[in-house]
C-alpha cells in the first residue's frame, strides 16, 4: 500500500489531490444502505481551483469531509500530497485548511485566541506563529475585531476567522465547503477575492457550492455531482463544448435530467427483468 502511494506521487507529482473511486456508504433508516458518494474520481493541481457543483445532498460535503480526514472512506483512495487520507490522517491534516459551514468557531474565544490556538495545535513556534498572525489579521482586515469573542461576531467576521484559522499554518491545500452559504453579497465577494489570491499564491483549492455563477467565475475545472456521482468534469469550455450548451445553467440541468432518465430506464428494465 505504501509502495502504491510513493509510486503514485512519483508518477504524478503535479497532482496535489488525487481521488480514485471514492465511495462512502451509510446505514440509513429510510433508504437502507445508501451511497452518499459513489465511485468518485478527480485530481487537482497546485494553483488550480477545482469546483464541485451539485444540489444539496449530492454528496459534496461527504467527499470534502473524507478529504479532510473527518470521515473515513468505505472504499477507494484519496491522497493529498501523496498521503492517504485513511491511513495517514495526521500528515494530511498538516497539509490542508478546511473551511465549511459546519466548522464553527468557539463562542467564548476571541478572534486572536482562536487563530492562535489552531496555530499552536499545528505546532508552530511562537515567532513564526505571531508573525503569521499579524500578517493574516492585516491581510483579511481583522484587526478591528481582534479581541471580540466569537459569540458576539457577525457572520462575516466569523467567516474571516474561519479562513484565518484554516490558513494559519500556510497549507498547500485549501478546501472550501459551501463557504459562501449564508453570507451577504459583500462578504461573499470578499471571500471569492481571497480565494483568487490564494490561487495566485499557488495553492491547490477545492471549492464546493450549489451556486452556478460562483463556479463559472471562479473555478478552473468543474465537476458536476448528483446523487453521489460525478456526472461530468472538465474546464468550463470543455463542458460547454462536449454538451453543445453555452449556458452553464442549462448545461447543468440537462446533465441532471439525462442522468435521471438513464437511471429510470435502467430501473424500468430491471423491473421488467424481475417480472
Amino acid at each position: 500500500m505504501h509502495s502504491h502511494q510513493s509510486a503514485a506521487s512519483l508518477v504524478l507529482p503535479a497532482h496535489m489531490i488525487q481521488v480514485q473511486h471514492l465511495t462512502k456508504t451509510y446505514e440509513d433508516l429510510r433508504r437502507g444502505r445508501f451511497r452518499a458518494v459513489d465511485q468518485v474520481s478527480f485530481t487537482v493541481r497546485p494553483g488550480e481551483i477545482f469546483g464541485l457543483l451539485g444540489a444539496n445532498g449530492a454528496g459534496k460535503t461527504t467527499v470534502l469531509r473524507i478529504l479532510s480526514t473527518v470521515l473515513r472512506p468505505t472504499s477507494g483512495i484519496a491522497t493529498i500530497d501523496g498521503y492517504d487520507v485513511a491511513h495517514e490522517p495526521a500528515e494530511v491534516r498538516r497539509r490542508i485548511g478546511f473551511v465549511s459551514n459546519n466548522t464553527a468557531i468557539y463562542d467564548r474565544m476571541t478572534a486572536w485566541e482562536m487563530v492562535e490556538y489552531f496555530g499552536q495545535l499545528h505546532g508552530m513556534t511562537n515567532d513564526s506563529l505571531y508573525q503569521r498572525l499579524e500578517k493574516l489579521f492585516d491581510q483579511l482586515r481583522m484587526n478591528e475585531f481582534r479581541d471580540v469573542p466569537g459569540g458576539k461576531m457577525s457572520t462575516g467576521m466569523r467567516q474571516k476567522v474561519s479562513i484565518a484559522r484554516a490558513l494559519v499554518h500556510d497549507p498547500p491545500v485549501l478546501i472550501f465547503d459551501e463557504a459562501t452559504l449564508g453570507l451577504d453579497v459583500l462578504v461573499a465577494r470578499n471571500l471569492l477575492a481571497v480565494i483568487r489570491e490564494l490561487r495566485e499564491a499557488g495553492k491547490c483549492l477545492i471549492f464546493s457550492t450549489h451556486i452556478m455563477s460562483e463556479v463559472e467565475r471562479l473555478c478552473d475545472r468543474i465537476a458536476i455531482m448528483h446523487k453521489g456521482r460525478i456526472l461530468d468534469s472538465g474546464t468550463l469550455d470543455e463542458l460547454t463544448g462536449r454538451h453543445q450548451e453555452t449556458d452553464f445553467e442549462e448545461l447543468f440541468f440537462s446533465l441532471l435530467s439525462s442522468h435521471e432518465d438513464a437511471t429510470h430506464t435502467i430501473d424500468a428494465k430491471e423491473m421488467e427483468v424481475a417480472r
Partner: protein
Amino acid sequence: MSLSSKEKRKAAMRAGRPRFSAIRLMYTREMRDQLRDRRTLFTIAVLPMLLYPLVGMLLLQIAQFTRQHTISVCVIGVEHVTDDAEHAETNTFVSPLLVTVEDEEEASPSRLQPLGVSESTPVRFSKTLWDSDSNIDVYAYSAAELSRSGDLEERAQDWVRDQVFDCVVCVRQPLGVNGPVIMQDNQETDAAGASVGLYYNVASDQSMIAKDRMVSILNRWRGSWVRTRLSDAGVELSVLDPFKINDCDIAPERTREAAFWSKLLPFIMLVWAMTGAFYPAIDLVAGEKERGTLETLLCSPALRSEIVWGKLGAVMTFSMMTALLNASSMLVTSSFVFNQIGVGPAGSSMGAPPLIPMLWLLVALIPLSALFSALALAVAAMARSSKEGQYYLMPLMMVTLPLVLLPMLPGTTLNLGTSLIPVTGMFLLVRSLVEGQHMEALTYLPMVAVVTSVCLSLATRWAKRQFESESVLFGDGDQWELGAWMRHLWRDRQRAATPTIAFGCGAVILVALFFGKLAVTEMPDTFGGIAKLIFLPQFGLILAPTLLMATMMTTSLRTSLRLNTVNWRIWSLVAVLAVMLHPLYMQLAGLIGQMYPLSPQALEAMRPFGEHISSAPWLSVILLMAVVPAICEELAFRGFIFGGLVRNNSPVRAVLVTAFMFGISHGVLQQSISATFMGILLGWVALRTGSVLPGILIHFGNNALSVSLGRIAELQLPGMQNLISVDAVSQAPQYHPIWTGCALFVSVACLIGMYRITADMDVMENNDVLADRIISDQPVRDPSLKQYAS
C-alpha cells in the same frame, strides 16, 4: 516528498502518538473556555459555597425554633394537679405539677381566651419539673367547671384542632395512689381512673414540640412521685438501679472522630464528583457538536487521542473541583452548625473532622474522578446536543450510584470480596485509611488498585472509541421511527448481526432467563424434572431467540453464528484446552467460594440436585449438562452476539460484553463470577480462531469433567489417586495441586500456541474486516482494492 516508505511509516507511527504539548494546549483551552462560562462557574463554585451555608442556616433556625419557641399548653383539671388546700385529701402527690402564681409579673401573659370560658388561673409548672418556664404559656382550668359546659374530650380536641392551644393536658379525676398514666390521644387504658390525656396534632410542628415538652414534664413528675412513694414504703432507691453500665469505646480517638465523617464525606464527594464530571462533559462534547466546533477541531492537526486526553483532563479537573468545594463547604458549615446545635450522632465528638486523615480522600478522589470523567465523556459523546446529553445523566447515575451506596450499608467492610467491586472497594479502602487502619488498607490496596485501573483503562478506552466512531460523532439527526426501523432491519439484513442486534439478542436472553427463573417455584425432585429445568431454558430461552434472530435478521446462518471451519492444528490445541482448563476452573470456583461463601440454605437447596445428577445414567447427564449447554450457550454468546459485537473493529467489546452476559446468564453470583472469567477466555478463543466451534468443544469438556469428576474418582483407576482425590469432609472430588499446576502450564502453552498460529492467519480479519467487506460487496467492484492486495 523524498521520504522512503519506511521513514514514512515511522513518521506515521510518531504522528499516531499523542503529543503532550497538544494535550496541554487542549486542556488549557477547555479550562479557559469553561471558566468563561457563567453557568459552569455557578454550578461548580458558587452553588456549593451558597448551598451548604444556606441549608446550615435553615437547620439552625429550626433548632432555635424548637428550643426557644414559646408554646401554649392548656391543663384541664387544675384542681387535681396543684397543691391546693381544698383538694388536699384527694391529691396524694408529694410535689404539685402546677404552682399557683401569686406574683402577677410571673404569670403567663394573657392571650386569647377560648370562648365561653372564664379566665384561667394564673399558674406555672413547678420549678423542679421545668425551670425555663419562660417558653411555656400555661392555661389551667378546672375540670369540674369545664365539664359543666360540655364534654371535656371534645373540647380538648377542638382546642388543639383550632390551634387555640398547642397541646392540651386533661386530668379528669384525682390521680390515685399509682400516679398518673400518661395517655396520648384517646387511647384505651386499663389503668382505671388514673389517667392523664394528652392532646396534640401531629400535623403541626408547634403542637409536636409542645407534646414533646409536656411528655418530658409529665414523666419527670411521675418519676418524682414514684421515688417518694417507694422511699415511703421503705424501699431503697438504689434497688431501681442495681448496677451501672460503664461504656468504654476502645477505638482510638482518631477513629472515633472520623467514624461519622469517614462514611459521609466520601459519599458526598463521590456524588459530586459524578455530577461535576457530567455537566462539563456534556458541554465539551455534545455542546461542541451542537455549536459545530467539534468538526473544526476534528480537521485540525490534533489527534483524536489528544482531543480525548485534553477534554478528559478538563472534565476531571472540574469533577475534582466540584467534589472538593462541596465537601469542604459542607465540612465547614456542618461542623459549625453541629457545634451550635450541640448534637451529633450517638453523642460522638462531632466537631471538626480530623483534617490530616481526610487528605486520603484526595488521593482516592483522583482515580475515581478520572473514572467518572471518562464515563461521562463517553456517554456525552452519544448525545447530539446539550439537551439530549442531560437525558443520559440519569441512566449513568443509576449504574454508578449503587456502587457508591453499597459501602454506606451497615456492615459493609473492606474484605477480599468488596475490594474487588469497582468504586466500592476504593471507597472502603479510603474509609479504613481515614480511620487509621493502615495495615488493613495496605493488604487490600493491590486488589483495589488493579480493579480501579482496569475500570479506568476500560472507561478511557471507551471514550476514545467514541471519538473515533463516525456514527457517534456525525450521527445524523434522523428521526427514529419504529416502523421505519423495523423495515430497515428486514430490508438491510446483513450476513452477520449488527452490534445493535447483538445487544438486543443478549438483552432478550437475559430478561427471558430472569423471568424463567421466577417462574420456577420449587426444585424438582426427579431427574426428569431436573432435565426439563435445564432443557427448557437452554433451548427455549437461549437457543431459540438466537436462531430466530439469526434467521430473521441476517442473511447467512453460517456467518452470523460464526460456524467457520478451523484448521487441525487449532483443533488439537482446543482439545487439550478442553481437558486442561477444568482444574483451573475448579481452582477459580473454589477461590470464589471462599471469597463470597454460599449460604448454608443455598447449599441445602442444591443438594438434591447434585444427588440426582450423580445417580442418573452417565450418558444422559453428559447430554444434559455438557452437550446441550455447550451448544446452546456458545451459539448464542460466542456465536451470534459475539459476531455482532466484534464488528467495527471492537474485539475488546465483543470479548468483555459476551463474557458479562454469559456470566449474568448463570444466575447464582458465585457461578456468574467464574463463568465471566471463563467467558473472557472463551471469547478470546472465539476471537483468535474466528469461529464458534472451538468454544463449543472447550465448554463441553469443562462441563463434562465437572459432572463426571466424581464418577472418575469412584472408578479408582490405577494411578488416578495421584490426579484426583476426594475431600474427606465435603466428599467433593478435587484435583491434586501438582496436576492443577501442570494444567496451568499446559493451558498457558496452548493459548500461546494458539496465539502464534492465528497470528499468521487472517482470522483476525475474518472477525471484522472481512465480515464488513462481504456485506458491502465492495472489493469485487472496487479496482483500487486490487492495488492494495498487490
